[in-house]
């Protein structure tokens, strides 16, 4: 890993290699929190980031859940968007071409059946602009698909196997945190030939409006994200990084360079910024800059030196 460019502590080398994809720096934007990229273009140059993971795609367009879809919680938020998306064809034809060549784009895939997951992967194959595929096997608030696969080792294995066969792109599997052993699930992915794992997706959650005595989300259950979940995410990244040899892409509550460095130290090769983009559309860039500042301050010449460098007593 690490880049070839000669560099000293003054200009830390930020390139990393994630699942065979060379990234300008270890900061990606998380699926579902950066649209298809173009929505963020007014606020920052996406080419300055490691890349983006576009909103999860299904075979056909999906309409998503009725509102209310989001709710604020202590230091976090809940959502049940329902994986609304334009579908893989419209993504390839309409969305992807609008992004500058310099933007590294991962496609995220979500479906309700293994065959359909594989079919979306097939459609994405051969697409040069798709740097890699992230399988979303972990959405906590859709009736079928998603977390079903992410919570059962055997189903996850079948899913990864089918998509591995269907996809000619580097394949990341996004894991659910709503399991007893996330390390076990990561090992399953490694065993089936995944090139890396991403974690965590949101924690399954519920909140109540006590005045109306109803759940705050129309879908009842939703996914908890944001700073509140960061310590759970870090724990899981730490456990997974020790359990598998494929690279780990860490996320959950990252809002600053320090937050990101914590994930790298726990063993993540790259990180994703999610909820923070909503509060501050330039969050991804600020995280990138924060990592660079950290490296300078600590005399670290290559960001890869941080990966897994946590000192455990």
């Amino acid at each position, binding site marked *: 890993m690490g880049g070839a460019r000669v560099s000293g502590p003054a200009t830390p080398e930020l390139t990393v290699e994630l699942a065979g994809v060379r990234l300008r720096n270890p900061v990606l934007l998380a699926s579902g929190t950066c649209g298809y990229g173009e929505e963020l273009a007014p606020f920052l140059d996406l080419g300055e980031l490691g890349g983006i993971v576009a909103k999860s795609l299904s075979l056909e367009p999906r*309409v998503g859940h*009725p*509102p209310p879809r*989001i709710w604020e919680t202590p230091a976090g*938020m809940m959502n049940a968007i329902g994986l*609304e998306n334009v579908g893989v064809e419209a993504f390839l034809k309409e969305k992807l071409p609008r992004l500058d060549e310099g933007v590294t784009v991962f496609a995220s895939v979500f479906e309700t059946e293994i065959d359909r997951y594989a079919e979306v992967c097939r459609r994405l194959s051969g697409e040069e602009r798709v740097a890699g595929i992230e399988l979303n096997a972990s959405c906590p608030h859709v009736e079928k698909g998603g977390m079903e696969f992410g919570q059962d080792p055997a189903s996850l294995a079948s899913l990864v196997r089918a998509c591995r066969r269907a996809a000619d792109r580097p394949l990341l599997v996004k894991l659910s945190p709503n399991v007893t052993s996330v390390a076990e699930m990561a090992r399953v992915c490694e065993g089936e030939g995944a090139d890396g794992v991403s974690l965590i997706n949101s924690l399954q959650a519920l909140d109540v409006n006590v005045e109306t005595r109803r759940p705050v989300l129309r879908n009842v259950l939703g996914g908890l994200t944001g700073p509140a979940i960061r310590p759970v995410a870090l724990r899981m990244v730490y456990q997974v990084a020790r359990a598998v040899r494929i690279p780990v892409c860490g996320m959950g509550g990252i809002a600053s360079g320090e937050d990101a460095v914590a994930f790298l130290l726990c063993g993540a090769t790259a990180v994703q910024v999610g909820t923070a983009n909503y509060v501050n559309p330039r969050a991804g860039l600020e995280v990138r800059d924060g990592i660079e500042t950290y490296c300078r301050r600590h005399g670290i010449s290559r960001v890869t030196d941080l990966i897994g460098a946590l000192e455990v007593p």
Partner: protein
Amino acid sequence: MSAGPRRVVLRVPGWPGHRPGQFAMLALDPESAHRDPLLARPMAVYRGDASALEFRFKVVGRGTRILGSLTTGSRLGVVGPLGNGFPSLPPASVLVGGGTGIASLYELAAHHSRVRVLLGGKTQEEVLGLEDFEALGVDLQVATEDGSRGHKGLVTDLLEPEPDRTVVACGPTPMMWAAAELCRKAGARCLVSLESPMACGFGICLGCAIPTGAGFRYVCTDGPVFDAEEIRWEELA
């Protein structure tokens, strides 16, 4: 602390200007001493220009409590202007505002001095910006639920839409729905400015979906101003 509407005035370097009815997301703590409340709050621009923006709001929860307790020199994160804003209005349009919804209407009224303006609130105190509307010299009528000012009752009691004229309504959902119904029956066009929980305000979270005849549309990017005919009010309420 009085229960009445509050104001906050911000200097926003680089603000590119805005149209009446657009809004901004106000992040309460850009310096991150607090990570709760986490999300920015959507607020209509009450009035403003490149030198300063004014917002008017009611304290209804934690975010607005914090906004209401800011002191001179406090810093906020501002993303905006956002949303579509109002179109230019034909002559003899009527603006109907209730409670904090009035905040979206002031600049619209200021740009169209020939409009009629109907404002409502629970009490006179809650009729946000009343003095400013008076100073505009527009044709103004007020309704309060407690009768402390003008007509005693709902602001929609004052609304008598005329065919082919335009009504703009902004306020609580039941009030906008009532205005929409009156307009539909009278054959008048009705524009409404909707509210919805928002995480981002600029189209990436898909959180602000509302049900319309054409499927879900987004308050932050397709709105907040919609033609009332588009909205599936039964599902919204």
